[in-house]
C-alpha cells in the first residue's frame, strides 16, 4: 500500500462520521426548509414575516449586548487577575471559571433563584421598597444568564493575552508621556484586539444559539432558538423551523465574518 492511500484510508472514519452526522442532516435541513407551502421563499420569511423579523432583531441585540458587556467586565477582571498576585487569587479564578461546568438549564435555574418570584433580589427589594423586583422570566433574565456563562470563557482568553503583552510597550508609552488612560487606549487595548475578536465571537455565537437557559426561564421569551422550538414542537411547522434554523446559522456566521473583517486590520497590525 502506498503512503498516499494509507493516509486516505486513515481519513475514512472521519469522512463517514462527517457525512452521516453533519453533511446529510444539514442537506436534509436545507431541503426541508424549502419544502413548505411557500417553497424557497420560506427562507425569506425570517426577514419578511414581521414576527420572525422582530425576533431576529431581538436575538441579535441580545447577543450583541451580551458580547459587549462580557468583554468589558472580563477585560477589566482578566487584566487585574493576570497582573496582581494576592491571597485567594487561585480560588477566585477557579470560582470565576466555575460556570464553564454548568449546562444552560442549571444557569437558568440559578437566574430564577436570583431574580425569580421567590428570588433573592425580589426578597430584598420587597423588604426595602415593598415591591418585588422580578425579571428572571424575561429577556433581562436571559441576558444575565448569558453574561454568567460567557464571562468565564472570555476571562480565560483575555488573561492568556494579557500574559503575552510586552510590559515594555506600556513602559515605552509612559516614558513618552502617556498617562494611564492613554496607555490603555493606545497600547493595551489594540494589543488585545485579536483576543477580543476571538473570545467575543464565541460569546456572540453562544448567545445567538443557546437554548437551555431560555427554555428554563420561560417559553415565551422572544429569541430565535425559542421560536424554532415552538414552531417545531408546538406548531409542527417543519419547513419553517428548518428555514429558521438555517437562517440562524447563516446570520450568526455572517455577523462573525463581518466582525472579523472589520477588526482584520487591527488584528494584523497587532500581530
Amino acid at each position: 500500500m502506498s503512503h498516499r492511500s494509507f493516509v486516505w484510508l486513515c481519513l475514512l472514519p472521519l469522512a463517514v462520521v462527517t457525512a452521516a452526522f453533519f453533511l446529510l442532516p444539514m442537506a436534509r435541513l436545507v431541503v426541508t426548509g424549502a419544502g413548505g407551502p411557500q417553497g424557497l421563499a420560506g427562507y425569506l420569511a425570517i426577514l419578511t414575516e414581521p414576527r420572525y423579523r422582530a425576533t431576529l432583531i431581538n436575538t441579535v441585540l441580545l447577543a450583541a449586548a451580551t458580547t459587549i458587556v462580557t468583554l468589558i467586565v472580563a477585560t477589566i477582571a482578566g487584566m487585574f487577575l493576570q497582573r496582581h498576585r494576592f491571597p485567594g487569587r487561585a480560588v477566585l479564578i477557579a470560582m470565576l471559571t466555575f460556570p464553564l461546568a454548568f449546562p444552560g438549564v442549571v444557569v437558568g435555574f440559578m437566574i430564577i433563584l436570583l431574580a425569580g418570584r421567590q428570588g433573592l433580589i425580589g426578597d430584598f427589594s420587597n423588604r426595602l421598597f415593598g415591591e418585588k423586583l422580578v425579571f428572571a422570566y424575561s429577556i433581562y433574565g436571559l441576558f444575565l444568564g448569558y453574561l454568567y456563562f460567557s464571562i468565564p470563557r472570555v476571562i480565560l482568553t483575555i488573561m492568556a493575552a494579557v500574559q503575552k503583552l510586552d510590559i515594555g510597550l506600556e513602559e515605552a508609552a509612559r516614558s513618552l508621556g502617556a498617562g494611564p488612560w492613554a496607555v490603555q487606549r493606545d497600547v493595551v487595548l489594540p494589543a488585545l484586539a485579536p483576543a477580543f475578536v476571538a473570545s467575543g465571537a464565541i460569546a456572540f455565537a453562544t448567545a445567538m444559539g443557546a437554548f437551555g437557559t431560555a427554555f428554563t426561564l420561560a417559553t415565551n421569551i422572544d429569541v430565535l432558538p425559542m421560536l424554532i422550538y415552538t414552531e417545531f414542537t408546538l406548531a409542527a411547522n417543519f419547513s419553517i423551523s428548518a428555514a429558521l434554523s438555517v437562517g440562524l446559522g447563516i446570520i450568526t456566521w455572517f455577523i462573525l465574518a463581518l466582525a472579523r473583517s472589520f477588526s482584520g486590520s487591527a488584528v494584523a497590525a497587532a500581530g
Partner: protein
Amino acid sequence: MSAQAGHGAAVRIDACGKTFADGTRALQPATLDIARGETLVLLGPSGCGKTTMLRIIAGLELPDAGGRVLFDGKDMTPVPIERRNVGMVFQSYALFPNMTVSDNIGYGLKIRGVPSKERAERVAELVTLTNISGLEHRRIDQLSGGQRQRVALARAVAIRPGILLLDEPLTALDAALRDRLRSELNRLLRALGITTIYVTHDQSEAMELGDRVVVMQKGAIAQIGTPREIYFTPRSRFVAEFIGAANIVEATIEDRHLVLPGGRQPIHCDVNMPAAVAMIRPETIRVTSAGSASLSGTIDSISFIGDRQRLVVSGASNRLLTVDAPNTLRTRPGERIGLSISPDAVRLLPPES
C-alpha cells in the same frame, strides 16, 4: 537641532539602593553625578544592577527609602516616568505594533498635544537624522532589527528629552550590524549632545560611547572613570578582567622586580611584597629573542586573528600568559621566546579582589 544645544539635565543619584519585594538586593546604595550633556555608560555582567539603576533614574522603579534622584538639582524621586521628560530606548525596542513608523516617532508629541503640522516636521527631521527615510509608512513588523533600533531612538529623541536612557540598545542585533550601528550611535549622541545614560554588558560599546564608564559588580559600583582610566588603571581584579583582555600575575616583589618562574620583571614599586597581584595587558608585551631577555617562556599555542596574532605562553608566569604579537612575526608552538614588558605597563592590583 538648535533647541537641543545646551543639552538636557544634570542628574544626581543620591544613595539609591534597591531591594525587591522578595528580599533580593539588586543595588547597594549608590551615589553618582552625571554632568549636563555627558554620556555615562553603566557597564557590567548581567545581574550587576545596571538596569535597575537605569530604571530608578527613568522612574520605572522607586529607590529604597532614603534614596533620591535629582534632575538639575530638583528632587524627581516621587515623579512618575510620564512626567520626567526622559527618552528611553528599550532592549526589545518596544515599538507600538499598531502604529506606523512615523506614528511611533510622533507618539510622544501627540500625547503632548503638539499640532499635527509641527509634529510632522519634527518627525521628518528625525527620520532624516536617524537615516530611515522611505520607511515612514511601514508597519513595525516590516522592519529589520537595525531599522527598529533607529525608530526606537528617533521616538525617544523626538520629545526633546532632558535625559536619554538606553537599555542595551544594540544587544538584539547581530555582530556586524552592532559594530556599524555603534559608531553611528556614537556620532548621533555627540551631535545631540544630550545627557545620556547607556546600559550595556559589552565593554567595547562602553569604551567607544562613554565619556565616563561606571563598572558595576554584584549590585555595587566597582569603578568610575573615563574609558582610558578604566582600561589602564583598573582598581580591582574584576575591573581588569572585565575590560579588555588581561593577564593577572601573582608573584612576590623583591627589589623593584616581580619574581616570576620565567625570570624577573622590573616594575615601579619600592616596597617588597610576599604576595602581589599585577595586571599586564597582552598588547604591552613585546616578543624578543630568548637569549638576552630577563623574562622568557615557551609558546603553547598561536591563534592568528588577522590584524594580530595571539600567543599563549607558558613557563613565564605562574599561569599561562597571553601575548598579542604583530601578525608578521614568524614563530611556532614550542619555541622559546623572550618577553619584554615596560615597567609602566605593569599595574599592581589590591590582592584581596
